[in-house]
């Protein structure tokens, strides 16, 4: 191989490597789902790690306590899903296990604790649907609802970010740790083989 062909190969390899290792893409071996409560609804986002949203798939919601399937819904092209909190879950105080099924056998789950929607049921969309509150006839109950709504609106992005932060990501330590274990196993195999040879 002459020098110019070698240079071309190196350039092609560098471009391909830069493209494939770029953080822009997704990788199709782990799906993450995270959910948060907004008023009477649960909002979820599903994405491949690291990278893009799940664009085709379904979400199944189960009772964490009984295993009963409560509802099934589709994931939109942005990887998002919204569903109303099932009445049975509110009534019995069940935690919700939200399972995301993406294509090619990929899936993952997220648990929404009953405490989250019990404490959030006055906030968010349900209250907002009642329209503006009259200024003069504002009882303490109405005030409480209004504050809940405002707080819910302001806390929504924080709740989403907090939920996303709980998703475990692949770190450099994970990669090094795995390589270290593989190296260790190879060393152990050598150790035993050396012992056999001595015998």
């Amino acid at each position: 191989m002459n020098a110019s062909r070698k240079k071309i190969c190196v350039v092609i390899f560098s471009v391909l490597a830069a493209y494939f290792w770029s953080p822009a893409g997704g990788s199709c071996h782990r799906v993450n789902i995270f959910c948060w409560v907004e008023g009477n609804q649960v909002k979820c986002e599903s994405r491949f790690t690291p990278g893009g949203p799940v664009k085709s798939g379904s979400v199944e919601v189960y009772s964490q306590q009984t295993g009963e399937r409560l509802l099934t819904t589709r994931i939109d092209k942005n990887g998002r899903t919204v569903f109303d909190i099932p009445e049975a879950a509110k009534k019995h105080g069940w935690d919700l296990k939200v399972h995301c099924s993406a294509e090619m056998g990929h899936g993952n789950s997220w648990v929404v604790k009953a405490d989250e929607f019990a404490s959030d049921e006055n906030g968010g969309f349900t209250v907002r649907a009642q329209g503006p509150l009259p200024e003069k006839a504002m009882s303490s109950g109405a005030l409480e609802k209004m504050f809940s709504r405002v707080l819910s609106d302001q806390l929504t992005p924080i709740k989403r970010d907090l939920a996303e932060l709980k998703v475990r990501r692949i770190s450099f330590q994970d990669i090094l740790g795995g390589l270290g274990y593989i190296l260790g196993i190879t060393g152990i195999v050598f150790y035993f083989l050396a012992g056999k040879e001595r015998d």
Partner: protein
Amino acid sequence: MHISEGVLSVPVLIGGAAVCTGGLAIGLKKIRHEDVPKVGMLTAAFFVASLVHVPLGPSSVHLILNGLIGLILGWAAFPALLVALFFQAIFFQFGGLTVLGVNTVNMALPGIIVYYLCSGMLRSESHLLNITGGFIAGAGAVAGAGVLVALSLYLSRQAFLSAAKAVLIAHIPVMIIEGIITVIAISFVRKVRPELLEM
């Protein structure tokens, strides 16, 4: 290509574990003392290769390298991939421990098939046959893994044709890329360490 926990039925999981145990026994028996570093090195390569992702349409796919590993290791691909998949499940949450057997079989078996089909072409003096053999091995092993993933999903009561179509279409770019990478890697190995191809 990593099937997640909770997707496959119990008989498929048990069947996969049984086939994997058989392959593992044969693989361990065939590993010679001098092959241990080679197996360790390719285990590490497979462990990291899945982090190389290719963004693709509604989803994304990653490098597998099972063709290259199969060509170089033969039956030793079983222990190598089992260890790599185990650490991927532990560190990255790709796949899972209960699906370890199925995932190992899905990736190792096509590698062994291309080992028997293509190693003759790689031993040939003809450069064209070497390139063709390397490409068929790299691309064919990915296609084989795709078919086995679809078969695993089908045996767990999912539609085979739609699953196979989804997996194969999603992996066409990876087949091409892996074919090219295998050709380059094998050509390089033949030049600098031809003894690596003797397993």
